[in-house]
């Protein structure tokens, strides 16, 4: 019963509810910006790796991209966050940048593999037909291969977005302050816990908020997928 009264207390106290909402907003914002960075980075890396298969000038960039994806996917994101915040971008006022960059760079590595797999899943004959008509590799990619790859890539990118959203819960590990972007949903539960001495109540509320947004993303992607499929009925 104490649990319910505590939950009620949080919801009816402006200060506590404000923490939760602020944290929720920040979690979304960090995720959104990081996801955009990840998408751009991932796309670039995937394209470089694919084109490097038959372009010798891209061998070295592709090698660097391979190191990037191997290292990022082979180490914990928490470690990457520490290194970024306490070793690379140790400039006062740049903590938020460092955090967002970490998640963006991390996400980019996974997204690039998703996009690469999506592109490679398209029959080689499609590329060969495009090239044999005299289209450049770039045109073939943008007009023929990518439009077909998108369908395969969207669901995996959606999963990646959900994973990213949940992963951002570790920002509090590098210290967070109320009022800045570092104050995420997870941190909000801790602050509330300090005041009401009940960890479970704010956690349940935060959990519901995570769950709601994850569910929303899932639904959104399903709709998007269905649209894509309907638009080129095959």
């Amino acid at each position: 019963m104490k649990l319910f009264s505590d939950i009620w207390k949080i919801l009816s106290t402006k200060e506590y509810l404000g923490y939760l909402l602020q944290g929720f907003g920040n979690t979304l914002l960090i995720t959104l910006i990081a996801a955009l960075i990840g998408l751009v980075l991932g796309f670039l890396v995937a394209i470089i790796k694919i084109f490097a298969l038959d372009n010798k000038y891209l061998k070295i960039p592709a090698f660097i991209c391979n190191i990037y994806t191997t290292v990022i996917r082979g180490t914990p994101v928490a470690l990457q966050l520490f290194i970024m915040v306490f070793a690379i971008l140790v400039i006062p006022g740049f903590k938020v940048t460092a955090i967002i960059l970490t998640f963006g760079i991390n996400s980019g590595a996974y997204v690039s593999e998703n996009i690469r797999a999506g592109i490679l899943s398209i029959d080689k004959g499609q590329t060969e037909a495009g090239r044999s008509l005299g289209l450049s590799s770039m045109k073939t990619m943008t007009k023929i291969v990518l439009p077909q790859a998108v369908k395969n890539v969207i669901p995996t990118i959606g999963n990646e977005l959900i994973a990213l959203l949940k992963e951002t819960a570790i920002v509090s590990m590098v210290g967070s302050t109320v009022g800045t972007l570092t104050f995420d949903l997870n941190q909000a539960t801790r602050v509330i816990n300090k005041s009401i001495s009940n960890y479970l109540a704010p956690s349940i509320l935060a959990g519901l908020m995570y769950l709601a947004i994850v569910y929303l993303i899932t639904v959104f992607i399903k709709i998007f997928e269905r649209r894509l499929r309907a638009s080129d009925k095959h």
Partner: protein
Amino acid sequence: MISIRNIYKNFGNLEVLKGVNCEIKKGEKIVIIGASGSGKSTLLRCMNLLEEPTYGEVWIDGKMMTHVDPYLHPELLEKSKTFQKLLKEQNNHDEVINNIVNNKLLKKMEGKKFHQAKKEFEKENCIDINVGRQKMGMCFQHFNLFNNLTIINNLILAPVELKLMTKDEAIAKASELLKRIGLYDKKDEYPSKLSGGQKQRIAIIRSLCMNPEVMLFDEPTSALDPEMVGEVLNLMKELANSGMTMVVVTHEMGFAREISSRVIFMDGGVIVEEGTPQNVFDNPQNERTKAFLSKVL
């Protein structure tokens, strides 16, 4: 029109083509036959550089699509360091050249003079690979229509993207071809809605929309249900009668005999025998040709 000069193609350690030479003149209908694995597809794909030859050159209309192969040009070899060195030892110009060519003695670095001459030669004779490919239509065993585009967009994509025609011109041309093969009513369908025979005929006219000078076919009917082979072969016969230069890899011997002006028999990565269909089919000279034909005819 197309000149294939001493083409070698290795896949790793596997030597698939071992020195193929072939001149294709305007209007010729060439049929390439041979056992599975003899390198027919690879040769065809080397012609439009879907595979890059390991050695040798491909020329179209007097322009080179591949890189220069120095082993085909003694005047280039003369500029190499290896030549200069060997000349001091052997002192016979022709012997040294032969030695270099036969044993492939060129190294990565052959001196400034050699590389400059090579570059100059390429500058003078090379055309952009995409420009060369525009002159050669290619039809594949599995059609390879663009799955994300409707039939009409399949047909006009390349000519419009390459700015060879305006969209209206391309649509007019595509519509005319579609009407000719009786598939105009399918123009807004996606490829998945078509039968194999229809897909292959669309693939053929997709190439024709580019106004190619030569059409390459790699077993265009071998992925089709038997009842659909005829419609595709008929379109190809029509094309042949219209004067199109064609190179066809096929197992359809009757068709080969009917349309070809020259039959090439390949085995083990080389051209073993070539000649008119009468000569090759009815009076083969080589034992390997005889063995192959006795199996397929």
